[in-house]
């Protein structure tokens, strides 16, 4: 073996660790170095990754596949997919079908080559079916009976479901769903799924999760935020929540989980939860009223901490670097203007035709379990300006103890009714206005959470101009118990 080629077994060990997500950052760096230096290492890497991909491809969907012999009649019927022409809905349906419609085989007893052949034949047949005579990317049109394991208990926003065979693109309260994947769209969207035993899983914001309930309930949160109110689970069969960076075992508790590709935040409202960091397998018990974080970094030992009392005042001026969890186009201060965030388009929901409803806004987030406590006498103030007269919406997403979702509340006002900022004396005010809304003026966005509870915290604050881009810019957001207009600090 040449000096350029790393030891065979070491490459294999690293590749295997990569597939099983057991590599440390240092190992990853070592592997990348080997790949850069050796064509043989890259060849082996490609073969291992392709094998991994092939197995993923063929097995994905196995858990959600419902063999015909197991179908129970009359549990639930998913409506047919939209087949309303070749527009955006078709594009979405087709793309979605490509992603999810592959079938797989469940390995029990003999996993036969014939099974894979069946898969290939089935796939070809599916293609033929989908293309049809007209060449359209039409989706399945017949209703499908399925084993329902959850019911949509509440929904605000746009959500879709698929089990890899059927797609239900406009979920509604009362829909019963078999194991599959749910995708939720919209900054302020939320959706609650309720399992048979009463365990409730609430997704908020733009989230995507897969769920199943075979030996145990399992939820895979691809990204987004979940609140879970879990009933006591059967002995030895805890509910499992998996994210890209962590795994959580739930016996019976109230908790919240926020995950993206690099970090998972867990807050426990009741009970106790074991959190495992996938990067190195380290675990930590997270007791009631504590939070913990698991990320890709393994330098620090995992720890559960009791979050301090959230402040009653919060101020965001977008100074310095962009607010990490905020949404909007950050604009640096210059001679005339302060640092600010400009509204950007986001999907607020979907119409009956499946087309996205786009609003223009910016969002302030901080810690996911909340960043400021709201009281009876709290006031939310926003320093903003618009290029055109617009209806401004303020929405606050509330969090209960340790981050559990506690509803969205909104207030609306015309931009020109907000108080213009005083002329600073050394130049024009550049159109800045102050919008101040007392907490008691916010109204519930959904009937499931009708009351704004004092003592709960704000986890998200959205400012938007609905569907018109009024060039909304926000320079300051203040939440406080007194006159909230900023004071020099």
């Amino acid at each position, binding site marked *: 073996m040449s000096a350029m080629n790393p030891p065979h077994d070491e490459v*294999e*060990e690293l590749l*295997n660790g990569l*597939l*099983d*997500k057991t590599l440390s950052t240092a190992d*990853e760096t070592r592997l*990348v*170095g080997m*790949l850069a230096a050796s064509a043989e290492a*890259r*060849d082996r*890497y*490609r*073969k*291992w*990754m*392709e*094998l*991994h*991909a*092939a*197995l*993923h*491809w*063929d*097995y994905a*969907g*196995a*858990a959600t596949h419902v063999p015909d012999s197991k179908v129970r009649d009359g549990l639930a019927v998913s409506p047919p997919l939209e087949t309303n022409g070749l527009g955006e809905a078709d*594009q979405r349906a*087709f793309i979605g079908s*490509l*992603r999810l419609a*592959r079938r797989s085989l*469940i*390995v*029990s007893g*003999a*996993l*036969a*080559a014939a099974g*894979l*052949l069946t898969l290939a034949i089935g796939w070809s047949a599916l293609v033929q079916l*989908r*293309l049809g005579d007209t*060449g359209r*990317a039409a989706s399945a049109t017949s209703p499908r009976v399925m084993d329902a394991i959850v019911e949509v208990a509440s929904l605000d926003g746009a959500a879709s479901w698929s089990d890899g065979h059927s797609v239900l693109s406009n979920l509604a309260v009362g829909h019963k769903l078999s194991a599959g994947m749910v995708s939720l769209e919209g900054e302020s969207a939320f959706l609650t799924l309720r399992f048979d035993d009463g365990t409730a899983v609430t997704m908020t914001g733009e989230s995507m999760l897969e769920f*199943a309930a075979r030996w145990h309930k*399992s*939820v*895979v949160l*691809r990204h987004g935020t979940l609140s879970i109110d879990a009933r006591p689970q059967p002995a030895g069969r805890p509910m*499992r929540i*998996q994210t*890209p960076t962590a*795994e959580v075992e739930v016996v019976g508790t109230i908790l919240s989980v926020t995950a993206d*590709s690099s970090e998972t935040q867990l807050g426990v409202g009741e009970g106790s939860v074991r959190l495992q960091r*996938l990067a190195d*397998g380290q675990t930590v018990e997270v007791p009631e009223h504590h939070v913990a974080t698991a990320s890709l970094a393994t330098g620090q030992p995992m720890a559960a901490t009791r979050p301090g009392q959230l402040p009653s005042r919060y101020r965001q001026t977008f100074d310095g670097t962009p607010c990490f969890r905020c949404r909007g186009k950050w604009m640096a201060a210059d001679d005339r203007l302060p640092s600010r965030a400009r509204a950007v388009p986001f999907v607020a929901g979907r119409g009956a035709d499946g087309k996205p409803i786009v609003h223009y806004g910016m969002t302030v987030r901080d810690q996911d379990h909340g960043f400021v406590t709201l009281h009876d006498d709290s006031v939310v103030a926003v320093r903003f300006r618009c290029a055109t007269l617009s209806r401004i919406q303020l929405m606050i997403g509330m969090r209960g103890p340790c981050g559990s979702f506690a509803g969205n509340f909104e207030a609306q006002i015309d931009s020109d009714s907000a108080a213009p900022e005083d002329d600073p004396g050394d130049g024009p005010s550049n159109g800045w206005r102050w919008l101040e809304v007392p907490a008691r003026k916010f109204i519930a966005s959904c009937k499931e959470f009708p009351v704004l509870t004092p003592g709960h915290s704000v986890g998200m604050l959205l400012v938007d101009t609905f569907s018109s881009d009024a060039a909304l810019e926000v320079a300051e957001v203040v939440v406080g118990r007194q006159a909230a207009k900023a004071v020099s600090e």
Partner: protein
Amino acid sequence: MPSGSDFSPSAEFLAQVTRAQRPLYGFISTLVWGHADVEDVLQETNLVLWRKAAEFDASRDFMPWALRIAQLQSMAHLQKHRRHPLLNSDLLDRIADEAIADRATADSRRQALASCLQKIPEKHRRLVAARYEPGASVNAMAAALGKQPKAVSETLRRVRRTLLECIERSLATEATG
């Protein structure tokens, strides 16, 4: 040529995209780590393919074109999510180039996998099935089996190596047969 949002891809084009799903998934897996991320990039690639359908020259080979689009989408995804920053663009390009050059063999390897899976012991097939079901992880498997994650991963390593060796043997037999 029609273009823009009113353009509808032909049935033939859609069939090409559909047939390309598995190879695209395999190709993206060599550039982007993590099943969910690969799925996301595949989704983005499909959207771009749809939008660029009007630009595709039907007289050309579809797969190289689709793979290049997948390569660009992978790079965009990695930059957006700042993933494994050490996997620089030069290395990514090299891996992508080599994967595209090896495309035909990759297809043969995927086909050989079916029979190789049949040849391994049933307990190993079950292990593979458990590892690759949605949401599965080595840690969860280890907990269920009462073993250390490292031990489970080590067993998986042996199974994977066995499968790869079987695939290589199959390809060699085909070549000489």
